């Protein structure tokens, strides 16, 4: 069973313009897949379909299924526990007054209380390297720490699939290194929408290229990203890290 299956997904914005056209792909459990494309390609819109935040009105036949379950009512509460969506702006996602409360938010919605709840929170914070940050106020954290705190909130729900929207954007080099190392070691299925092509090369064996709402290429990362004409045609480029690699 695949962790994620998307079959012929289409979506139009409220003003009727097309956002996604016939998008199809699958992600196996434990895989890390990069989702790349120019601005406005529909990457974020696609991610919002993975936990049912879109479409606003349910389609007759859900195009997305996670671990075999269609992403539609009445499965949405369970889906939202299993699919951890990391939003682009950590300030949108860290909406609780303290880090502890924010990481605890998800498990609390799932009904956990007391020692079980604190255990989950502590483990999640330790996993992302933020042990001891429980009482900190979100606006006192660096951007990298905020991102990691958001990740902890998703891990505390024991998400099986992480959908990450530009996880390394706006991070300083150290923050980026720490996050990349973290993502590389998490044994969870990941779909990473990003402009950071170096990140994709380093931790995603497979990549999907999206442009104007349609999948224009998918396959092994090194092969796709080395295809310079393809990259340039879709607002991307061949990353430096591949340029300077020896051909073998």
């Amino acid at each position, binding site marked *: 069973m695949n962790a994620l299956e998307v079959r012929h997904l289409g979506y139009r914005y409220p003003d009727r313009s097309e956002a996604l056209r016939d998008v199809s792909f699958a992600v196996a459990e434990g895989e890390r897949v990069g989702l790349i494309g120019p601005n406005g390609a529909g990457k974020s819109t696609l991610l*919002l379909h993975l*936990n049912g*935040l879109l479409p606003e009105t349910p389609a007759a036949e859900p195009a997305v299924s996670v671990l075999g379950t269609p992403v539609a009512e009445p499965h949405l*509460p369970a889906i*939202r*526990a299993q699919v951890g*969506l990391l*939003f682009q*702006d950590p*300030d*949108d*996602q*860290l*909406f*609780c*007054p*303290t880090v502890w*409360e924010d990481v605890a*938010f*998800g498990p609390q*919605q*799932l009904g956990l209380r007391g020692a079980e709840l604190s255990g989950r929170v502590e483990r999640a914070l330790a996993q992302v390297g933020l042990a001891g940050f429980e009482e900190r*106020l*979100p*606006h*006192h954290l660096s951007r990298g720490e905020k991102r990691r705190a958001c990740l902890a*909130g998703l891990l505390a*729900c024991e998400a099986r699939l992480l959908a990450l929207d530009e996880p390394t954007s706006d991070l300083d080099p150290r923050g980026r290194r720490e996050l990349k190392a973290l993502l590389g070691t998490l044994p969870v299925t990941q779909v990473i929408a990003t402009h950071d092509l170096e990140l994709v090369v380093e931790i995603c064996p497979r990549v999907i290229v999206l442009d104007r709402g349609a999948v224009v290429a998918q396959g092994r990362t090194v092969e796709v990203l080395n295809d310079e004409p393809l990259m340039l045609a879709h607002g991307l480029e061949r990353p430096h890290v591949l340029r300077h690699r020896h051909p073998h």
Partner: protein
Amino acid sequence: MHDGWLNPYRHRASLIHRLPAAVKLVAAAAGVLAAVLLPPGAWGACAGLAGGLLVAALLSAVPLRDLGRRLLLVEPFAIGVALLALFQPDGLRIFLALLAKSTLCLGCVILLNATTRLTDLLLALRRLRLPALLVTTVGLMHRYLFVLTAELVRLRRARRSRTLARGRRAAWRGAATVAAQLFIRSSERAERVYAAMCARGWPP
């Protein structure tokens, strides 16, 4: 972070800080109530309350100068309204009583918020039956206060860099535009926060 003024809490490892928020809230409320209910001439009782407040302030290890400065910051409003009280029979006595009472009450509240985190206070208020929706909105307001004031500073700076005209009219238009932009951004952010809350299973 230049937001110290937005956050009155001063962390110290003192006896007062360690007390549960509910206890401090009730104590502050009791202090305020006692001061309010004092009849105008009861100077002895006033002094007693002031003494108790001073002891608590010393125990809290928060610098008295810090507390005093915040007191001076909010006093003017009280003084302004109190001046109106002078225009009536026995006005001076009422004026002085008002000043004494309001200073005592301000002292209690300032000590409370210097020694108690708002989040702990909110939990205490929730236990005291404040409606859950209000607790959530107060928590959200507190969380996004810092985000929005930072955004305000950026918007104002950008606007000022592009304001070439001088005078009040340009200033008013500029400030109003900043407010409009801030509202639009805030309501868009509210949509995203709503999505983030739903993504983690809210409402239960």
